[in-house]
């Protein structure tokens, strides 16, 4: 087995007396797609928040590409190559779709302190913005204000921002939540092709089990802040504990 790109050891987070995440460990191999599932309140988002720097863990460690990133601020973690999307839409509504992507690209190209030159004059940024928008099928909406985009397009734009930072590890928080079946299919295909390109490693939370089983190489099941099970989709489907605690509630095909 190769070195894991992300190695989480015994991560804990408590709020007051409540343990939201209680000693979870996880190794993610490069170019792998790992799904993180569990019922609401299982601690998935808190887990994400600690990896991406939004919250400081109470205990435990997070290593990324052989570097300890535990408790680093989000912008540093992002710069190291971890990018995340959010459960609720988190695009810049007052900016155009293209500008949303430009924000991420400006950071990537270290032009964020460029005082007098607009991003729209930077060839590299423009070409990349075109490419990212093209890839997500948003090119025709470039100049539309993000606030007036459809819900599905906003979710896509969210992913576009994530990809624009050229991450090696992508954390997607329910990427297809609230999407139409058509949009869901589109996004699933997109993630699949990105994964197949070999440039990205994915960590995904998702409620839609079809999507999970379709995408994941490996699944981590969380329940009440703890690791309940871990394995291939087949193993997880077969796990009686998981079925009882979680899958039983959902109609598994």
């Amino acid at each position: 087995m190769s070195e894991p790109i992300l190695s989480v050891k015994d991560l804990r987070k408590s709020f007051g007396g409540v343990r939201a995440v209680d000693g979870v460990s996880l190794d993610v191999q490069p170019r792998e797609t790992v799904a993180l599932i569990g019922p609401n309140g299982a601690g998935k988002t808190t887990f994400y928040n600690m990896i991406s720097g939004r919250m400081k863990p109470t205990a435990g460690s997070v290593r990324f590409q052989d570097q300890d990133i535990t408790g680093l601020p989000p912008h540093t973690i992002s710069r190291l190559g971890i990018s995340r999307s959010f459960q609720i839409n988190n695009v810049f509504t007052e900016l155009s779709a293209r500008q949303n992507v430009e924000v991420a690209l400006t950071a990537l190209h270290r032009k964020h302190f460029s005082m007098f030159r607009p991003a729209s004059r930077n060839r590299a940024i423009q070409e990349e913005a075109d490419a990212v928008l093209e890839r997500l099928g948003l090119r025709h909406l470039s100049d539309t204000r993000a606030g007036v985009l459809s819900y599905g397009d906003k979710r896509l734009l969210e992913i576009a921002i994530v990809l624009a930072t050229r991450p090696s590890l992508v954390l997607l928080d329910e990427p297809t939540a609230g999407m139409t079946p058509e949009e869901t299919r589109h996004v699933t295909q997109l993630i699949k092709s990105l994964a197949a390109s070999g440039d990205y490693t994915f960590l995904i939370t998702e409620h839609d089990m079809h999507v999970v089983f379709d995408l994941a190489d490996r699944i981590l099941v969380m329940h009440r802040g703890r690791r309940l099970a871990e394995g291939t989709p087949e193993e997880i489907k077969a796990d009686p504990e998981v079925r009882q605690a979680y899958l039983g509630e959902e109609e598994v095909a």
Partner: protein
Amino acid sequence: MPALLVVLLAALAALPYFAPYFYIFVATEILIMGLFAASFNLIFGYTGMLSFGHAAFFGMGAYACALLLLHFEVSLLTAILGAMLASTLLAAAIGFLSVRLGEVYFAMLTLAFGMMVYAVAHQWRSLTNGSDGITGFRLTEFGLGLDLQLFNPAVYYHVVLVVVVLASLVLYLITRSSFGLMLRAISENPERVAFCGVNERRHRLVAFIIAGLFAGLAGALFAPFNRVASPDMVHWTQSAEPVLMTILGGAGYFLGPFFGAAMFVLLETWITSFTEHWMLLLGIALALLVMFFRRGVLGTLLDKVTGR
């Protein structure tokens, strides 16, 4: 389209030749206050930080300029540059302490730090001459070997016009730049920006310092204009003026603060002749604007015109 901007500038340049004498003073004040408000809008409209202590930098500029003119008899240009340096340093110090905190705290903190500067200006009598402020400084020369009669209000107006136009141009370029894009993104969602790999706090600090620098420039133009630098220029009510002007004009537009400054100064000039209760009208106008016309007068007008 730029043609119309040229017409506007030409009209402003020609103003002393056709407007009544008093309006040279009014226009000078509008330009200076417009720049002050525009500098405020860099952090308010573009970065989403409501500062109630912006007068600290305006006042710092005014005091530094007045002191340099008084004690060192430097040229106006040198005094202005010195004033900008002083306000930049002050903005760096206050900004460092303030931008770390959330918006509500930020508003209260900037207010309190502004009052701290006020208290110093008031109490450090050996330097600032206390409540009386600094007067009696002389304008000798502009600098750069230019022979300008700075005591002539029309000449001073032209100096202010050139400086304000240049400064606005720089501010405009900043708002349009990559950095400006970052600020707009931060004003909407600082966290998302951080997750793009940008230290948003440092951006807010830099924006705060730039705003302080230009506020200092406005203050440095204001002191020679009124021949005084006094603690009133640092008081929190002075900080409220760019806030009001920006809301009045429209924070979402680069020229909004200038428009707001023009409305504010002209209305103040006219209304105070009719009523002592101009503050009441101002309060009602502000409340209505915030409740119903969030885009400001200029913004609302333009929305009507463009049918947005």
